């Protein structure tokens, strides 16, 4: 894969990468760091990608790993005061935004990949390397939790 093809494919994924990073990391700067590191790693290890059609899931997996790395690093240097939840974007009401961020990480990432990034459960299973059935059950639990959270808010 040459730089031109890599660039085109990454550009096409930018919105998805953002939503995934947003769901995983609180700080905007961390999201920028994560996506930068993920792109650099993907570029340097692109020879390991055996099938071009897996590029999307491959890059997203790397980004998720980067987010995990940043989270782990932050656990090792915990701030004295807990960070506030990020404010909802100005172009959307905050209830659903907050509810999604309150979901357990395993459910949240499934919601993001399915509803925000548009992946089928089989593709999410590839990305997360978990059985398809597990993805579906996490989505089901996540939807129920969202419903509960939103009802609770009212």
């Amino acid at each position, binding site marked *: 894969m040459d730089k031109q093809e890599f660039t085109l494919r990454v550009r096409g994924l930018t919105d998805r990468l953002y939503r995934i990073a947003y769901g995983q990391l609180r700080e905007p700067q961390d999201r*920028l760091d994560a996506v930068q590191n993920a792109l650099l790693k993907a570029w340097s290890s692109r020879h390991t990608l055996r099938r071009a059609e897996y590029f999307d899931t491959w890059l997203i997996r790397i980004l998720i790993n980067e987010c995990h790395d940043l989270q*782990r690093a932050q656990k090792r240097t915990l701030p004295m005061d807990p960070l506030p939840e990020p404010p909802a974007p100005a172009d959307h009401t905050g209830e*659903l*935004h907050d509810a999604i961020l309150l979901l357990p990480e395993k459910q949240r990432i499934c919601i993001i990949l399915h509803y925000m990034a548009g992946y089928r459960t089989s593709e999410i299973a590839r990305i997360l390397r978990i059985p398809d059935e597990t993805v579906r059950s996490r989505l089901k639990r996540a939807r129920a939790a969202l419903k509960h959270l939103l009802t609770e808010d009212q």
Partner: protein
Amino acid sequence: MTEHDIRTAFGETPAAFRDQVELTLTELEDTPMKKRYKLSTMLLAAMIAVLALAGAGIAATQWKTFSFLQITPLEGADSLISTNLASTEDEYIRFDFEEAIFDGEGLIAQFRITPKQPDIYNLSADSCSLIFNEDNSYISCFFTSNFENSVLGADGLDSWTFESAGDSIIAYASHFGPPIDTSIQMDVQLSYCMPEPPYRTLTLDFTAELSATTDLHRYTIAAEPDEQPHISLDDQEFELIEGSFAYTDAFGYYELKLHCADEPAALFDFSDPISGFELSRHTNEPLSMRRSLTSQQYLEDEGVWFYYEKGIMQPFIPSTGDEAAAPVAEDARLNICSKAFDIFESIPVQLIPAD
């Protein structure tokens, strides 16, 4: 709460993020790709490949199950296969238990579902759906199974997979567990729905003595003394701690314990595509027949992570026709792959006979 609400909950991608992506892309050096690690087809198909044994005369491909799984079993596998085990039918459907492979550790069963009026009811292998031709309504069949005795555990058959065969569909199901007795009793239920409810159920009761092999070859998997038992996969580091490997003439089984340098970010698939019986290489889709009996990651001591997996794989060990021939330790390799990324790691290991 609609799907659109969820899709837009995080708002638009900010310019700062787009700029960062563009900046990073701009700074990439357009260097040629490194040479990709190349594995032979055999290695791609196998997790632990014992390559030293030159193949001679294995057939058994007349068996539907082995053909479907694209397995070339050892010669002795013939004796582990039972055919035409049970049948039942009702007004609409005929349900046959045609073939079973039982090696004392695992069972794969093959069933055939045939509509009695194929010009009206057409069966599809897609999720074992019964398609009613007149209005093309989509009707699913559901299978459940139960073993009367505890030999195979209470879970019954699982991992149902289907394929078309003319007017019929063929269903494959598997069950693998600890070493078991030679007696199997089970009933398999086929539930289906015509265009109008209620569901209809066909129960296939089955009791039989299936022959199990006592010829189970067991090995301990150990890292080569002179090799660094080091596995790097997607920036995660693993080290082989212990493992075991066993095979019968029908299937192979493995257990692995790996030390992880850090908490595994997600379960990855050691076994694909081999324990998925290779079909995934053709369909690029995970198949339910792919087996990974147990996989877990756990923290044994603070900061020390382990990854454990137990699974089944196809019998990829070439046969010499000489059952006494043992795999050659120095040619064994532990190949690890990730389905999502198709990345493979291969490390040499020793297979030490357990007996």
